[in-house]
């Protein structure tokens, strides 16, 4: 049967375009405008040209926040992805415990971001927090408000607690879709556990893993609420990530021009990484003939 081609269907996309215009395009245009202007409030703007871009590109503050954020994302991915796969492989496949595990795994994902921060802020306190006080009682000089390493460890463990289940649940869904016949064939061939993982389970999980890595990268690269609630970006600037720095600049100091230039560069990095992931994902699908 001949497929009808009707370009008028594009008009159906118009309502969505209007929504996107208000939620994304107009704010983005405003940010570009602010990045070349200076303001002291009252909607009075003065042309600054490329000054803010030049200043931001040379600012130690931007590069160190970018470095900290990149390190944070790398650590998070290096822990959460293998751990998520490990958990998914060891979750029960059916019965009561499968449902139980799914509910328990989904719980951290349902907690609002600022509540996660508050939970860990209290949990890690040495005077009333269970974790902090236990470590203190064991003779470990743990103090996340004064020691940068402890602050980093607390935030990393918090993020692992919050988000590993997302990776695990995605992998679990992919594992559930593998037909039993594959495992039976592997058993007949006397394949080792590693080979079953490498040639049956991992290829089936590839698609969801790329999505999980993309989601976790984007989220950790934009992280704001949890570290802000736990450490407020400190001690010093040791846990000041890009978003925290940006909010300090735009809302705290009302430096709208430099903050807008900073935002545009931040946006470009995210856009580049998203494009790379999107291209990898779509090309992988095409090669597999999905």
């Amino acid at each position, binding site marked *: 049967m001949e497929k009808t081609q009707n*370009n008028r269907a594009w008009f159906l996309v118009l309502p969505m375009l209007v929504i996107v215009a208000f939620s994304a395009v*107009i704010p983005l*245009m*405003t940010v*570009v*405008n*602010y990045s*070349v*202007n200076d*303001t002291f409030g009252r*909607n*009075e*703007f003065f*042309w600054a*040209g*490329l*000054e803010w*871009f*030049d200043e931001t*590109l*040379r600012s130690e503050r931007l590069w160190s926040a970018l470095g900290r954020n990149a390190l944070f994302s790398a650590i998070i991915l290096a822990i959460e992805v293998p751990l998520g796969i490990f958990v998914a492989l060891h979750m029960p496949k059916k019965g009561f415990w499968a449902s139980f595990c799914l509910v328990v795994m989904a719980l951290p994902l349902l907690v609002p971001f600022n509540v996660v921060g508050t939970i860990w802020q209290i949990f890690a306190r040495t005077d009333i927090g269970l974790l902090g006080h236990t470590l203190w009682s064991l003779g470990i000089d743990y103090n996340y408000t004064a020691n940068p390493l402890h602050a980093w460890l607390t935030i990393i463990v918090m993020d692992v607690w919050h988000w590993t289940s997302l990776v695990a649940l995605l992998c679990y869904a992919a594992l559930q879709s593998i037909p039993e016949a594959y495992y039976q064939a592997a058993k007949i061939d006397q394949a080792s556990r590693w080979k079953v993982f490498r040639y049956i389970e991992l290829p089936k999980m590839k698609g969801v893993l790329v999505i999980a890595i993309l989601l976790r990268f984007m989220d950790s690269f934009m992280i704001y609420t949890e570290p802000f609630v736990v450490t407020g970006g400190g001690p010093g600037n040791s846990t000041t990530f890009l978003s925290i720095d940006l909010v300090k600049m735009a809302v705290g100091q009302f430096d709208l021009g430099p903050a807008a230039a900073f935002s545009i*560069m931040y946006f*470009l990095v995210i*856009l*580049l990484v998203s*494009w790379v992931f999107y*291209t990898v994902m*779509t*090309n992988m699908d*095409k090669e597999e003939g999905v």
Partner: protein
Amino acid sequence: MTRRGWAVLAGAVFLAFAAILGLLVRAVPRGDEGPDWTGQLVEGGWMAWTFPVAVFFLAIAALLALMTLLALRFPEQPRRGVLRIETTRGDRLFVTLLGSAFINLAWLYVFGIDGPPLWGALILCLVYAAAVFRWV
């Protein structure tokens, strides 16, 4: 649509963009020393529109309109280039614009604000765009 119809449509789109550009030029504030090209187009407006930024967005809108017309007039199949990924004209435009942003930032970082003007980076971007449309 006939060949003539396409020409009329392309001409109408071109005229629409030219008219918007004309309106923008008219909106530029003028003082005793002539037009202030970097002045506020809307005095007291919260979006802080200036002529250079407005032209920048108009150029992007014109590129999107051109790409839409080309896609309608000359439908194309995706192809594989040096990056070994399938790309359409739209993909190549995206790669061009994204790469151009980084080229401009790199120019500013290397030469600084007092160095050679960004027009140099724009020429580099055009060379880069030609390369992307030819080989990617």
